């Protein structure tokens, strides 16, 4: 579950995701959760997001 409105573009999720779930949106300076199907629920993005915008469900 990604609360996109809280994203401030720290890009930590993109940096730490080992399966390429996050797609940086260069123009908006934010990210998009693009590949739920490959997510392995490792929890790295949840822990590193400084805005607590990501939840595991």
């Amino acid at each position, binding site marked *: 579950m990604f609360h996109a409105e809280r994203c401030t573009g720290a890009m*930590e999720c993109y*940096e*730490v*995701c*080992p*399966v*390429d779930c996050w797609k940086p949106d260069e123009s908006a300076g934010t990210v998009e959760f693009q590949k739920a*199907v490959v997510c*392995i*629920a*490792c*929890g*790295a993005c949840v*822990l*590193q997001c*400084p805005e607590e915008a990501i939840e595991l469900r």
Partner: protein
Amino acid sequence: MATAFMRWLEMRPSDYDRGIRILTLGRLEPLQRRLVDEHIQSGWKVLEIGCGTGGLTVMMASTGAEVTAIDRSEAMLEVAEQRVQDGELGSRIKLHQMDASGIAEKFTHGSFDAVVSSLAFSEMSRQERQFVLSGARKLLGEHGSFIVLDEFQPRGWLLKSISLIVRTPLRLLTWLLTRTTTSPLHRLEQQLKKAGFTTTDSTESLAGALKIIHAQVSIDTEQELQGIPTMGRLHGGWTLRKLGVEAWALFFRILPPYPQKEPGVYEIGEPGPESPVLVTGNYTLTVHRLVRAIDSHVDAWLLVADSEGINVWCGAGGGFLTAERVLSIWRMSALDDHLTHKDMILPQLCANGVDGWKIRKESGWEVHWGPVRAEDIPAYFRAGMSKSDDMRLVSFPLWGRLEMMAATLGFYALIILLPVAIFWRSVFEPLAVSLFALSTFYAISLHSIPGRDGLQKSVPLVGIALLGMLVYSAFQDTIGAQQLFNRAVGMTALSVFVGAELQGMSPEMRGEQANWGWEALVAVFLGLVYWIVPNLMGWR
């Protein structure tokens, strides 16, 4: 199943207390009582390092001391908190969840009359002990006492051999019952002296295996540790010892004891004040691979944090490799005072458990997430510490799959095949052959089998296994319907089981427990089929 096994390995606070009672043959509590009676005075301010479930803490507070107790385990502290409440000692006891390495930063220097520790120093690395002792020295006033109750290695070959003979079965039994073990201290007196203490008194129990050591602050020798306390240089070359560890790990890496590197700061090549700082866990295999990948390419400082011998990803996921553990080793390294930069590179795969923001906040250093694979580190530096997509993503190439297959087979051999060989000889051979064939086939063809996870992939795997079984059976002259039925049920169960196991081993799929519910359903269904069909067919 490997995950179920790992779960069983986890220790609970009640297990710990039970385990310690067995290991110390019930001598710990009387000795703690003695420590309090002989060394703790009413009204004293006492810092207890590693209070665990709070047994000693409560004893000290009951005699009138004001106790500040720290421990890094939240679970242990919860039990301690309950004890404090039960004894109505809340006004005299303060509990903090923190690592012992942080005491000199957290508490006011010269503010304690005594620093006390029971069975915590034997859990630290040599370097950590020295650092914590120096910290304790700073917290004590001029007449402060340091009192430690711990397990010690006996002196002299005779006592050593007796201890080995008595302790080995005791340790094994304790570990099986409670997953608790300890490693006795040696040469603590030397470390005390180095930190600025004079040993004044010691009380022994169990032929010196348990000891209370009382030390006093030495007036004139407050020693500051100089420079970076390096543990030595690591080399990428092969040695006989390394080969042995790797050979063992190839088949038995799932089974403890996990080979551990002593935590601390190490040198790779000839690092200087500008060299990068890399962080990793203390699984020996991880350290070997990392050093092999970068030795002679990059000069670096390597911080080996205590992950209890577990690899970076699983260690971080399981709560063993944490920001606290990284900060602990970082503090001890004294790198902050000696380097020209403030950047540390963490393995990307520990991001699931090591809170980067906590490290940034507490250390003032910048955290960089390095590549997933150690082999990519030289290229990562060549690119100016930036990662290509390839370096960020996990992969599970054939070589890795075969390696994991070897590890599961080693696990099956000991946990499943050995008992079967002893108690159920008749199925040993078909079971061993099937496990081997299925695992190999699965490992090699994993990416060609349709399905997103182990459970989905086990559907085609069941089909292939049944086909294989039928072809094999066709070459046998006499085979009845009942035998064929038994084989089919067996092969189906094994295929689902092997599929689930490899899911647990793969970095590309969710942990195997994601499908436990479904697997349990399959097991129940197969059990029913195995029970009902023979009755319907009149085979029984």
